């Protein structure tokens, strides 16, 4: 990401269009086939070498409810959501009133002709497009025309912002690479839109897209896909799962790649096993059973599934069984907002289950880290013999992000402290829950080990070092204390936070801590605040439990804003519990509207809180 502040483009002369800095929103309804048109629009911009990101804000149904797709092109590389839309394509009567009302003055509105009556605002640039007439010249069949009509706005937008139609064509060919007839009809539709717009509309006076080379060699990928690849390349051997939005595609994509890339070259047999379970209790039980028996086992779910897994996670914690849970977070229970963004499972995942217990959380902040951390989680689970959570959210998991291609994982697979028959023969003794090395991590054997000392009996609570039954106070307390030592070891093994000082080598007064999909919004907000003269150091948290760096960061700053996407300040409360003496220095910036995090909201909240202090 470039350090240049994108706000600088605002200082450009008012009558010259802004170059490569535009946010487009397409308002359609769910199930009308707009998705491929939107992807093609995004891809075309990407093909021109311009950094671009996309966010799909979709309802929790299959067909008919309003849906928005935003494409943000940003030379500076900002990929977070932008609150202010520069151009809106309004195709949906159900949402059109709000869609228009939300536009800032001066924005462009591309309006379906049937919605013309809603265009009351005089402070917008309004282009009414006769989509129905244009499409009827192309296809007669109503179902097909409903799909194809979306490609017409791609052509219109291409004209307005000077997107190269060659790149639109390339994007179409890529999208429909397996279906030449579909590619043709879509290209025809885009061309019709483009030709019509050329004849009838001026190009945008405010925004323009020009070729760059910032996307050369880059990939576009969803966080869920990246996570799936991480599991496949991380050497996962057992997957138990149950479908739930927004995590389903983690498992589905994993299954796809497993079948292609995880066959034993000698025998042709799969080096994995997958079961779609009957519920999340079962998927977690499968993972726990498999981890106990020596597999590298994982599951993927979302908040409701996490709740169901609680008891088994507690079992895995006390029985010390490796397990990985990918949690693509969404809003709370039942129906309503399952397709909206939230980081609302941080607290429940960290403390999941009954009795004492804390679990390491990996917090990827971009798609590359989704890949790397998913792979790493399997190593950490076996190294620490515990449950590791990989915490995504819907924004990171289901939206498209541009990234450098992922590098092969350099670290060899780590299976942790497992004693096989020969090693057991060498050490000559084995006590399953004994802290031999002082790091709180005991050794384990896996079932099938023929050594006479190998077998042990696994229970949740109530065991001695040798895994025999005990309800003695000192045995139990000793075990809990060792688990605390193990958790302290975990602190040292988790990915380090990423530190970015406002001025390298110096410590600013204000710090900010954020994680996950909040990262692009926070980066952009820092640039905005810097342009207002407010220097902010940034610590991007990449895991819990925290270690030294986080402590030092919080200690070093007068105030630290903890940005998170939930109402209850879940991360802040965990940090306050870790550092009670600095509790008053921790403030919260909380985003919980269900929309992806945006820089403007972060900036406004920090400015508001600072000005209350009389500092800003």
């Amino acid at each position, binding site marked *: 990401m470039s350090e240049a502040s994108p706000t600088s483009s605002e200082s450009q002369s008012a009558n010259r269009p802004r170059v490569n800095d535009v946010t487009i929103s397409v308002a359609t309804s769910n199930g009308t086939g707009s998705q491929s048109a939107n992807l093609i629009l995004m891809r075309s911009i990407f093909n021109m070498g311009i950094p671009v990101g996309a966010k799909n804000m979709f309802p929790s149904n299959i067909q008919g409810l309003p849906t928005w797709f935003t494409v943000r092109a940003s030379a500076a590389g900002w990929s977070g959501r932008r609150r202010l839309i520069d151009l809106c394509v309004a195709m949906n009567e159900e949402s059109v009133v709000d869609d228009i009302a939300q536009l800032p003055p001066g924005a462009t509105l591309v309006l379906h002709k049937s919605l013309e009556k809603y265009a009351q605002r005089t402070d917008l640039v309004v282009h009414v497009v006769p989509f129905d007439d244009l499409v009827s010249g192309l296809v007669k069949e109503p179902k097909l025309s409903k799909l194809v009509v979306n490609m017409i706005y791609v052509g219109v937008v291409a004209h307005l912002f000077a997107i190269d139609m060659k790149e639109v064509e390339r994007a179409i060919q890529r999208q429909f690479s397996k279906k030449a007839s579909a590619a043709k009809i879509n290209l025809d539709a885009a061309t019709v839109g483009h030709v019509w717009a050329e004849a009838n509309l001026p190009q945008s006076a405010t925004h323009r897209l020009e070729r760059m080379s910032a996307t050369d*060699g880059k*990939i576009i990928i969803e966080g869920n*896909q990246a996570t799936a*690849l991480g599991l*496949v*390349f991380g*050497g996962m*051997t*057992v997957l*138990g799962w149950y479908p739930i939005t927004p995590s389903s595609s983690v498992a589905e994509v994993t299954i796809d790649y497993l079948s292609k*890339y*995880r066959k*034993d*070259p000698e*025998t042709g*047999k*799969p*080096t*994995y*096993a*997958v*079961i779609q*379970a*009957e519920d999340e*209790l*079962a998927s977690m*039980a*499968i993972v*726990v*059973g*498999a*981890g*106990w*028996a*020596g*597999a590298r*086992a994982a599951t993927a779910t979302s908040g409701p599934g996490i709740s169901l897994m609680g*008891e*088994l996670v507690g079992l895995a914690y006390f*029985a010390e069984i490796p397990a990985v849970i990918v949690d693509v977070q969404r809003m709370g229970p039942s129906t309503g907002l399952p397709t909206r963004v939230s980081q609302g499972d941080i607290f429940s995942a960290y403390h999941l289950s009954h009795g004492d217990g804390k679990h390491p959380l990996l917090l990827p902040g971009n798609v590359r880290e989704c890949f790397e951390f998913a792979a790493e989680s399997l190593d950490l689970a076996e190294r620490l013999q515990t449950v590791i959570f990989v915490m995504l959210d819907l924004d990171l998991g289901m939206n498209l992000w541009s990234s450098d*291609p*992922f590098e*092969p994982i350099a670290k060899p*697979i780590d299976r942790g402290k497992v004693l096989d028959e020969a090693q057991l023969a060498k050490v000559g003794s084995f006590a399953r829950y004994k802290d031999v090395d002082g790091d709180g991590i005991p050794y384990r*054997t*896996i*079932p*099938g*080990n*023929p*050594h*006479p000392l*190998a*077998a*042990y*009996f*696994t229970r*949740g609570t109530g065991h001695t070092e040798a895994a*025999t*039954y005990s309800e003695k106070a000192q045995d139990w307390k000793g075990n809990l204390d060792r688990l605390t030592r193990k958790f302290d070891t975990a602190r040292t093994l988790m990915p380090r936070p990423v530190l970015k000082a406002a001025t390298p080598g110096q410590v600013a007064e204000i710090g900010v801590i954020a994680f996950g999909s909040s990262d692009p919004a926070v980066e952009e907000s820092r640039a905005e605040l810097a342009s207002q003269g407010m220097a902010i150091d940034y610590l991007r948290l990449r895991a819990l439990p925290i270690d030294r760096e986080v402590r030092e960061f919080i200690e070093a700053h007068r105030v630290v804003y903890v940005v998170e996407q939930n109402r209850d300040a879940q991360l802040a409360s965990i940090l306050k519990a870790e550092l009670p003496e600095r509790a008053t220095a921790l403030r919260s910036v909380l985003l919980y509207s269900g929309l992806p995090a945006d820089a403007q909201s972060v900036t406004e909240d920090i400015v508001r809180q600072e000005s209350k202090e009389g500092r800003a």
Partner: protein
Amino acid sequence: MSHEAAAPPAAPKPTKAPALNRLSLDLKAYKGANSTLCSGCGHDSITNAIIKSFFEYGVEPHRVAKLSGIGCSSKTTAYFLSRSHGFNSVHGRMAAVATGSNMANHTLLNIGVSGDGDTASIGLGHFLHMVRRNPQLVYLVENNGCYGLTKGQFSATADKGSLQKGGAVNRMDPIDICALAIEMGCGFVARSFSGDAKQLNQLLKAAIAHKGTALIDVVSPCVTFNNHEGSTKSYPYARAHEELIHEVGFVPFFEEISVDYDAGTTQVVELHDHSKVVLKKLERDYDPTNRRQALELLSHAQENQLFLTGLVYLDPSMPSMAEQLDLGSEPLATLPAEKLRPSPTALAEIMETFK
């Protein structure tokens, strides 16, 4: 021992050598920790039957994984086969835990011990789905018609009209675990009684030899909470009412006895490992390989509150979960790490598709 003719010195009186099985292990090698159950509990008899059966079959203890849920019954996995790994998991989830364990290592022989509460109430869903998948597992339900560990509440297998210790009447029809298992496609379904050591022993050995999930629903009286008059899972009731469907015999693959069985009175079914189940006809004409007949028998028993024991249903051909997953001979758990990570070339190839 030398075979020289010299007269042996006066040898000390030989102590009786313990009987050894085909692995040269004695019965002790199949025992576990001391039981902490109430004395007389049916579950302890089942534990003894397990010890004996695994000993007689000559199962290598380290090739066994013991799994259980929660309950008095589920505790018993600690009381046998101390040389096998054991996992006392959580209430009702053992079926799914065992499924995972079997995925990780399908070369192990799993034995799962559950209770009627563990299987028919909290864990019913997992039980049914496990049966559909057919992992290799001897699945025992130690069925006492009540929740022993939480002090005697009715379970879902309590018969209609049976009484709780305090006198409460059960007004609901029981869940028949065997019938459900057959409905779900289980290839080995048996019912037995903890007091019928002989039959249980034969059934257990046959279950060990079976390729997929083998269910044995064993009525196992709870002497503390469900052994009173009015209970249909008490010792006196079970003893008075047990009716054998047939006489179950088992000939393991390593015993090459060829006996001519009278086809009119005896049915022989060969199992996957070439062991044989030998079923001798008693009163009724019954073919346990006939699924419809099996379901009819169970519903007839349910309607008339009969306690029928024996091998209710057998289909040795059902593909196991490992077969359906197409697993190779090496368990996933011990595959070498280099087989688990696709090459950098593969990653580069995948990355191209996202460009």
